[in-house]
């Protein structure tokens, strides 16, 4: 059972409180992604699991052992670093064999495992080469291979794809996912790229300023973000946010700002009534904005001026302004609008979000 449990995990560097009260239970065979902007504490958390950073407070359990006092080599983990960290003076074979040699594996077993991993990763022709003779993508594979041969309980990935160019990144992403399916080992993956997080993770942990913002399956984070930060972080282009005031007119609650007014959907009225007369943040994703047609209920439509048209081929991004609020809408490529035109847009009432202005939590 290779589960990883973090209990009340904290890390302080002198004055800086980098990781704050992280509680996480990662199940056996699960692929969990820690994602967030630079400085959010995700790498520090990973390094504490690895044993490369001292734990200030809290507990980390790997399998059935508490590992707080164990050095990295005794934790039965393997790590893939952002810049590969291949030993430059050794061949690819020796790089991959190093960990097994340290653990005094017999030569035959080492050879078997290295060959196996090399086959899986397609690097068996590179075994005699030195790292400086390899391309970036090849080096990355060797780094992964080095981790695989150890058959560890947990894989740790520290932004492994960040140093690759865009195309290679996409390719390696898919390969990593296939690898995980094949190896069925618990994995913790750190990245700042939300696309990687969404595509790779069984569950995703969003972090900011040392706090865990939300933990959940990718789609759940997408459709039910816990707060404004998660809502804005997940999804590209980012969710549109508008400052609105909740007003009542004709027995109905409206979300209003100058030049913009939509009805508060009935299922949400109860939660929003206490905010009557106050400001809240309204959130709607670009893909949930459509050009209004007669089938759309008028209460959920609004006018906006088109400021920029970005044709991407598969879709068109419209940079619009509704009253004072700039927004982005993703529309069908067949739409024909021109700059400075006023268009009528409709939003999907079931995909509307409201966030408390002070706590930023989803209402």
């Amino acid at each position: 059972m290779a589960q990883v449990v973090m209990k009340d995990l904290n890390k302080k560097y002198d004055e800086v409180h980098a990781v704050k009260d992280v509680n996480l239970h990662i199940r056996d065979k699960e692929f969990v992604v820690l994602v967030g902007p630079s400085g959010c504490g995700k790498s520090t958390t990973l390094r504490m699991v690895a044993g490369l950073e001292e734990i200030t407070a809290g507990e980390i359990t790997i399998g059935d052992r508490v590992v707080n006092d164990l050095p990295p080599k005794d934790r039965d983990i393997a790590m893939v670093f952002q810049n590969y960290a291949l030993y430059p003076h050794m061949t690819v074979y020796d790089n991959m064999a190093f960990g097994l040699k340290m653990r005094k594996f017999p030569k035959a077993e080492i050879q078997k495992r290295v060959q196996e991993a090399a086959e899986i990763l397609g690097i068996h022709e590179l075994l005699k080469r030195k790292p400086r003779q390899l391309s970036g993508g090849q080096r990355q594979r060797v780094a992964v291979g080095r981790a695989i041969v150890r058959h560890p309980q947990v894989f740790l990935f520290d932004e492994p794809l960040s140093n690759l160019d865009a195309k290679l990144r996409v390719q390696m992403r898919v390969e990593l996912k296939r690898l995980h399916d094949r190896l069925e080992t618990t994995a913790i993956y750190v990245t700042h790229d939300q696309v990687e997080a969404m595509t790779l993770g069984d569950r995703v942990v969003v972090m900011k300023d040392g706090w865990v913002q939300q933990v959940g399956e990718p789609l759940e984070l997408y459709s039910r973000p816990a707060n404004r930060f998660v809502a804005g972080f997940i999804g590209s282009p980012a969710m549109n946010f508008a400052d609105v005031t909740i007003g009542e007119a004709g027995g109905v609650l409206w979300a209003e700002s100058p030049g913009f007014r939509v009805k508060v959907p009935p299922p949400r009225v109860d939660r929003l009534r206490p905010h009557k007369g106050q400001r809240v943040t309204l959130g709607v994703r670009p893909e949930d904005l459509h050009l209004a047609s007669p089938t759309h209920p008028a209460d959920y439509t609004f006018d906006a001026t088109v400021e920029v048209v970005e044709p991407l081929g598969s879709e068109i991004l419209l940079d619009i302004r509704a009253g004072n609020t700039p927004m982005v809408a993703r529309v069908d490529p067949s739409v024909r609008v021109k700059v400075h035109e006023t268009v009528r847009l409709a939003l999907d009432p079931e995909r509307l979000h409201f966030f408390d202005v002070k706590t930023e939590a989803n209402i």
Partner: protein
Amino acid sequence: MKTPLAGGAGSATGVQVALPRSRASGRSGLARALEHEQLLAAGLLAPTIILLGLFIAYPFVMGVWLSLSDTSVGNPGRFVGLQNFVKAWQDSIFRTAFGNTVFYTFWATLFKLALGMWLALLLNRHFRGKRLVRASMLLPFIIPTVLSTFAWRWMFDPTFSVLNWTLYKTGFIVTKLPFLSDGTWAMWCAIVINTWRGMPFFAITLLAGLQTINPDLHEAASLDGANAWRRFWHVTWPLLKPVTLVVVVFSVIQTFSDFQLIYVLTGGGPANSTHLVATYAYQIGVATGLLGEGAAISLFMLPVLLIVVWAQLRYLRRLEGA
């Protein structure tokens, strides 16, 4: 700001299970020491600390004690306070030696810096045979000082000096120059030799510094209309100041405490006129056996070195802070 966890399936619930803390089973004390950061650091630094402590710190303390006593060879001394220092200061030979040392250090360092800088600038271009030239330029610094000084001494020989011969034959002089037989001449000869020997150190180090300067800066300056000298003064020199400072500090320490050159060249003569602090300390302490007085003379070097290093480090910090 803490946000409540909107947990997905399987987030941590309130399961409280006391898990066993993993014990370092079967790991020897040595293994633990090799892993523990502080213990390992202590172990790694121990040999250095022991050696330096035994052969620098301890002798230094002993030297201070010696200088405050009247010890001589075969005669353990008593504490005499600052008597040795006073005696040294009143000794005209010592004052000459101290003055010589300052004179020698000042001029040699100046020449080494100027010539070294010039050579570094010359070597900063590409030309055929550059590697060979660069390698051979370092020879004066590599070859043991004592041996090359002997070669110079032979070149300065009163009877057979090749320099005298050349100058005579080319009509520059009529009588032989008293290279080593006159005190002042001899000091300048020493300065020449020290410069010859130390200039490569400056040149190579400054060259390395020059090579870190982005050539774009020179191009920009030249487009702005600066000629070679101005480019040097306004672009190159400011960027080289830190490296120069470090090199100068090293060199001053070496030159001020120099012993070999004068010992071989003149032995301190003629008539004790070319002594340096170090050679005089040797003469008093070892040759004459007055250990206490010799130690006191050596110690006169320390305040000067400290002041020089402190002043230059201050300047360096100011440069880097600016």
